[in-house]
């Protein structure tokens, strides 16, 4: 994708010092936490898988900071949105507990890794089937509309690969028809697992899809935190003001494997050296320093604090017990009287 395609621009919508600093701290926290989970995974302390958002933190945090859970906003993160989750308000401990299988976790160890959420807080607990959470976020906005809660918006995340699903299409089209205040963030990290974008879609830029849905489109360098903060703030404002769904494409590169089991050897040097290969955390850190908004010493201090925070969360989760099958209700229904026994006759 040529740079000329980058249609976003810095409008200084929200590029304030405090916002930038806060965003950076979430990015750092996500990065350090994910590195810790990766280590725990390699040490055999986490079963299943570990999925990292390395290289996508700026884009992820950009959307989440444009949302406000206290206003009733809803957030639909996906597998690479640790940074956004934290920025939206998910407790770090929730993440640690889910990864580490603590019974105290929000999903009670029934679910693991990225499969967590908090429905009352407005975080959709993703299922694995890509694209299927988008209409769920839309539904919450429809529900809010019914309940007269006009102010809230939704933000939802998907990858380049996820745009090929029928669910993505149905949901985006439905949101456009209903003119919902929905910001759809597509993190085009150049790969879906091992599959490069040229095996995934044939348009120049996924933002070219916006017009066909009748929604507004934004396309940005997803490695630039200012641009991310700014664009999402703009998109969120447009959504809130009644301009309907906003499609935001972030161009970036996954700086890790699909999961920690994957060495991503299929990602070429060209990609890594390319325009989206830079690490958004480094970029943001340089910007912080060069703009005088922070300095190395402070960042080192943050890092130290964060490491403690992460250590605290993971060791707490590790100390907690796992689930006890004999304490489980083994009931999938809320309506207990209609539940069938699990008798094995």
């Amino acid at each position, binding site marked *: 994708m040529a740079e000329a395609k980058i249609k976003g621009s810095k409008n200084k919508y929200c590029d304030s010092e405090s916002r930038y600093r806060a965003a950076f701290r979430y990015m750092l926290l996500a990065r350090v936490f994910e590195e810790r989970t990766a280590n725990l995974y390699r040490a055999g302390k986490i079963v299943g898988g570990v999925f990292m958002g390395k290289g996508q933190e700026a884009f992820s945090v950009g959307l989440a900071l444009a949302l406000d859970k206290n206003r009733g906003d809803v957030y639909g993160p996906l597998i690479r949105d640790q940074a956004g989750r934290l920025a939206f308000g998910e407790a770090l401990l929730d993440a640690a507990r889910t990864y580490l299988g603590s019974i105290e976790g929000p999903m009670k160890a029934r679910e693991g890794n990225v499969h967590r959420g908090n*429905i009352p807080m407005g975080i959709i607990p993703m299922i694995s089937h890509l694209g*299927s959470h988008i*209409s769920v976020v839309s539904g919450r906005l429809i529900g809010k509309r019914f309940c007269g809660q006009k102010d809230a918006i939704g933000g939802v995340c998907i990858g380049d690969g996820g745009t090929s699903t029928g669910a993505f299409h149905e949901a985006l089209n439905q949101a456009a028809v209903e003119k919902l205040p929905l910001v759809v963030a597509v993190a085009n990290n150049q790969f879906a697992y091992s599959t490069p974008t040229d095996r995934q879609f044939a348009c120049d830029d996924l933002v070219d899809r916006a017009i066909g849905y009748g929604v507004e489109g934004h396309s940005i360098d997803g490695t630039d935190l200012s641009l991310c903060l700014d664009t999402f703030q703009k998109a969120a404002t447009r959504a809130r003001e009644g301009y309907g769904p906003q499609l935001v494409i972030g161009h970036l590169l996954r700086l890790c494997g699909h999961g920690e089991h994957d060495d991503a050897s299929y990602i070429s040097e060209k990609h890594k050296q390319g325009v989206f290969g830079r690490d958004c955390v480094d970029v943001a850190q340089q910007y912080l320093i060069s703009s005088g908004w922070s300095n190395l010493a402070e960042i080192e201090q943050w890092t130290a604090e964060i490491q403690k925070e992460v250590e605290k969360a993971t060791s707490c989760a590790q100390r907690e017990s796992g689930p006890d099958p004999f304490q489980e209700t083994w009931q999938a229904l809320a309506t207990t009287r209609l*539940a069938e026994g699990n008798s094995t006759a």
Partner: protein
Amino acid sequence: MSITYLEAIQAAQDRALAENEFVYIYGQDVGSFGGAFKATKNLAAKYPGRVIDAPISEDAMVGSAIGATAEGMRPILEMQFADFSTIAINQICNQAATQFWRTGIPCPITVRLPSGGTEGGGPFHSQSMEAIYAQYPGLIVLTPATVEDAYSMLLEAVTIDDPVVFCEHKYLYYHLKADQLPDKNLPVGKARIARTGKHATVVTYSAMVHEALRAADTLEEEGWEIEIVDLRSIKPIDTDTVLASVARTGRLLCVSEAFPWGGVNAEVISRVTSEGFHLLDAPPKRLNAKDTPIPFHPNLWKAHRPASQSIASSLRDLLRY
């Protein structure tokens, strides 16, 4: 006054909308048009903004309904035909059905499936999908056979805190009439003895209840008293009522309009033989549609599904044993 099964479904939705401001209806052509079968007739005008036309996007229809429940809504979804719910199966079975177990937050959606065969319906407008859904944990699957049940069970479905797959039978839409709608009725989860008898039990549901009743009439002329259990709900199944009936008759025939592999018949037979083996005086039998898609032509369609004649003949075999 006389009211059809279809009108009962309309009336139940009318009442649900009237009594609960959180109910809304979403589906293709359900708005001012009143739905392909007119099950939402007049409702859009009566409840402005609450009966909404959907695009042809079954996946998004169900996905959005799931989301709306988190805001307190209790959506009713109409699939234009049960058969098209295959497009939404992921949302129903993986998103809606798992939500409570995963998060502790209930997901009260009602998905109406106009189900079952009619003359000329063909392979894609005739399917009985209840047993597909029943296999997934977290769903309640209802299969009303009477006008009264269509009404009361749909009303109850909307109050249930879990996703309900409501399999209403298209063949009964116009064919079945009642004098009035019930004030109260058996709750969801209870089976009904549709006819008492002592020589054999037929366990069935939905349109097949009426075929079984006709078969029982025939058998009565031959001196046999057939008991008929209308399951009403196929998940859960009211095993107690079924076992009690088999205890009385000693003989079991299960009848379903669905395809022969697995399904309700197999599940009922498994329960009865596991839990009430000694009650049986003869091997259990079952009767299903044939193992092909559902034919368009009435000649073939009639031969494809069980009907009073084939039920009667299975019963004779069973009674001869």
